[in-house]
């Protein structure tokens, strides 16, 4: 695999965020300010547009540039966090032109790290991390167990879905939702929904092939 796969993946991410624009708006309207559908569709569209025709062959640079484009387009909370994920993935994959299975695991691990470093949230804080962290764990263990990428991606998507559902047991401690305290518990976290959609797009990136 090379950068054409990454571009394909970014396209799937763009498409799923655009398709779920209203869904994310609805989720964010309940706990926050309702802009998440706009920022995620605009942000991933900007990321894809910035690199789809760039001819960039360095996987790291491609992801870093996609992240920068996203951060410029949507400097909101989740916009900047997703940009930080992409940029960190770019730093880790810098110099690669061919991608192994392990590189894909490394990509999502770095993405998670980039978001965690930027946002300084912990798993359990009812954020995006509670969707992505279990997905990355599932992805890694599936690949370690020798699964193919498409199988591992399905496992990751399932874990993200479960993680997202699990956010209704947590109290928000970051962002607007945090002002609700205990009342935030019963509500689904919109950022974790984005993690779930990311993993759906990741899974689809192999179906499409």
């Amino acid at each position: 695999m090379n950068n054409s796969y990454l571009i394909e993946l970014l396209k799937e991410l763009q498409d799923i965020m655009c398709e779920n624009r209203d869904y994310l708006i609805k989720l964010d309207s309940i706990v926050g300010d309702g802009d998440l559908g706009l920022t995620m569709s605009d942000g991933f569209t900007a990321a894809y547009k910035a690199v789809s025709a760039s001819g960039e062959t360095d996987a790291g640079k491609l992801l870093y540039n996609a992240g920068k484009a996203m951060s410029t387009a949507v400097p909101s909370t989740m916009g900047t966090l997703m940009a930080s994920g992409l940029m960190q993935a770019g730093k880790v994959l810098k110099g690669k032109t061919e991608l192994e299975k392990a590189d894909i695991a490394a990509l999502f691990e770095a993405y998670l790290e980039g978001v965690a470093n930027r946002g300084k949230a912990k798993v359990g804080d009812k954020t995006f991390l509670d969707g992505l962290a279990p997905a990355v764990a599932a992805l890694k263990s599936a690949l370690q167990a020798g699964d193919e990428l498409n199988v591992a991606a399905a496992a990751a998507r399932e874990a993200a879905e479960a993680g997202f559902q699990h956010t209704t047991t947590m109290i928000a401690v970051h962002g607007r939702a945090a002002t609700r305290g205990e009342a935030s518990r019963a509500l689904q976290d919109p950022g974790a929904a984005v993690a779930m959609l990311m993993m759906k797009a990741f899974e689809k990136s192999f179906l499409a092939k």
Partner: protein
Amino acid sequence: MKKIINRPEDYVNEMLEGLYIAHPDLITYTGDDVRCLVAVNKKAGKVGIATGGGSGHLPLFLGYVGKGMLDGCSVGDVFQSPSAEQMLAVTKEIDSGAGVLYIYGNYNGDIFNFDMAAEMADFEESIRVESVVAGEDVASAGPAADGEKNTRRGVAGIIFVYKCAGAAADAMMDLDEVKRVAEKAAANVRTMGVALTPCIVPRVGTPGFTIGADKMEIGMGIHGETGIRRGKLEPADQIVDEMLEKIVADIPYVSGDEVAVLVNGLGATPLDEQYIVTRRIDSYLKEKGIKVYRYYVGEYATSLEMAGFSISLLKLDDELKGLIDAPAQTPFFVQL
């Protein structure tokens, strides 16, 4: 939505264009992005100070760029953070080799973007950047426990941090010193606000919340964040007393302290009312034995056309007094 505007999408950029037209001697922008505002006046070898944040709070944030205060400011949409890329552009423009200090309010979006900009400045430009985050709204959260992160929102009190750090940089202190001063000011300031009416974000078109015709909300944030209590509107003196009780107990400010006081209108509250508030603050603090060194009264950090006001207290020592007294000249803050 009763606003004197053209298309809501053009609100921020048209406001900025007007600003450059009115103050060509003090401010300009870098590159071709009007949202990357920098001072015209440059002082070689001086530490650069940058801020940034959402629009809708004029004179905050950009209004304090000029001489003796800030050197640059990136501006986001109404109530939205500017991007790290924009912050980086400002950073590059205002660095003259002595490094850059970021001073901004304690909001997730701003923190994430300023952190990212600082990394980029270091990584891509080898500019040393330090950051001081102002979070002094006593209504927004309890004080940070030892070693814990401060979760209080940054509001009007940030003006004092700008003023002190700006004067320090203007006196050619180095980045560590300017940062120390900014941190000291940030640690010594406390604010609380009260809101009477909501405001309307132009692109949204409807009020962010509703509030009864005879009600006020004590402790509301400058984006309409929930305060600590909503109740019947009370006489000015009673409102001031309730706010000061919370503020004074917080650091605490004690008898013998000297303070600077900022009375800040949120947008639609007449100056008359702000002075009625000032009058009560003065007698309240006198009673507590707290001496007021200097008053600032007016609109310093607004929420569009929200009615209400905030009170900020800055505890002073000799160093801070000297910095507060230093001259400054920006589009919205002139002191001789």
